[in-house]
């Protein structure tokens, strides 16, 4: 039997060996959905706000702050590769949110003196890796612009190169957020390359143009509990931007999950919220009658006849 195992040359590990194997630790970048080896894809129709969403995620991860209720545990190095907007438009958008975090590096496609990156080629990948800031999150906005032929599956060699890069990022525990347009059939063009897919759909009351306003639907995840849709909107006042998201919708969902008997931790994970939000939303659910009123506190109950 031992001889057979040796003959296969497959590194079959026993349970203790598997547990002891020196795997690089996986860490959370933006729990519950973005960790250090996530290959996430955001897709949606043109103009819906994909880049605004990607910038918001990049900003939160780089600065260790919150975004749409998700909180980055600590600041991480982020590299944002722009393939469509250009420096001027990027500057306008970033100006809405204040001073750029030190950990957030941005490469506009039209930067002076820089040839356009094509991540479907060896040259493009080598230039990227030779010049990057060892990012823990790489944002590709958009995949169609940064790896055009690979995106369209027209060129196998370019697709090989892009897959090679994505595999390398995963092995080195670097997260990647790919932004892409909706394919002609309405689906995500590169969903097979991602282990998490977020579809952006127009919000019910969305008007044409104006600020970003959409619903985020998690179509593919590896989470233990489902991630519910979120409605989000970017509001701008006096040159400053602020995101609003659907706390109200979450009250209903939280109430449903609590009624199902899920633990506080599981509810927080399912809704992608912090613990403090759990209590706020639960109180709101009680106010609305979605959950029974709070019972008497333990300190007020008689226990063991101590009175």
């Amino acid at each position: 039997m031992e001889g057979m195992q040796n003959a296969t040359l497959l590194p079959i590990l026993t349970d203790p060996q598997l547990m002891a194997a020196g795997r690089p630790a996986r860490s959370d970048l933006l729990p519950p959905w973005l960790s250090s080896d996530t290959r996430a894809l955001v897709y949606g129709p043109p103009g819906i706000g994909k880049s605004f969403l990607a910038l918001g995620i990049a900003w939160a991860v780089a600065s260790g702050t919150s975004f749409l209720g998700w909180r980055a545990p600590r600041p991480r190095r982020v590299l944002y590769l722009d393939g469509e907007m250009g420096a001027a438009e990027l500057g306008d958008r970033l100006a809405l949110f204040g001073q750029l975090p030190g950990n957030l590096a941005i490469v506009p496609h039209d930067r002076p003196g820089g040839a356009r990156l094509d991540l479907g080629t060896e040259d493009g990948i080598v230039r990227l890796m030779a010049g990057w800031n060892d990012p823990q999150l790489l944002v590709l906005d958009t995949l169609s612009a940064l790896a055009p032929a690979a995106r369209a599956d027209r060129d196998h060699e370019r697709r090989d190169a892009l897959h090679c890069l994505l595999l390398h990022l995963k092995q080195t525990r670097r997260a990647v957020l790919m932004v892409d347009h909706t394919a002609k059939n309405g689906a995500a063009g590169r969903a097979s390359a991602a282990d998490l897919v977020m579809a952006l759909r127009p919000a019910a009351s969305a008007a044409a143009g104006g600020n970003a306003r959409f619903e985020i639907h998690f179509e593919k995840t590896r989470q233990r509990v489902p991630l519910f849709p979120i409605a989000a909107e970017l509001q701008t006042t006096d040159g400053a931007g602020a995101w609003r998201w659907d706390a109200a919708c979450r009250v209903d969902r939280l109430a449903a999950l609590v009624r199902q008997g899920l633990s506080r931790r599981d509810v927080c994970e399912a809704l992608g919220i912090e613990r403090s939000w759990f209590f706020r939303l639960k109180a709101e659910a009680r106010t609305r009658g979605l959950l029974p009123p709070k019972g008497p506190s333990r300190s007020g109950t008689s226990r063991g006849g101590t009175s």
Partner: protein
Amino acid sequence: MSALKREAFELPDTNDIDSVNQAQVTLIRLVAQNQIRASEALKISRMLEHRRRAIATGTLWEKMQELEAQGRQMRGEEP
């Protein structure tokens, strides 16, 4: 169409991109010399193309490992 002169033919060992290119050139010459049919050459050419992609991917992978190692060295991290 004239009958083929059926003979064994040799292609270079395809160890790198240059030798794959050389093999493709040899195939074209064999067709021109009427030693193999164009359709046969096309099938072999497809095999060579797969080989070329595999070599290109392997080369890129090695290059990425090198760049990663250089980066770690510059940052003063352990190899």
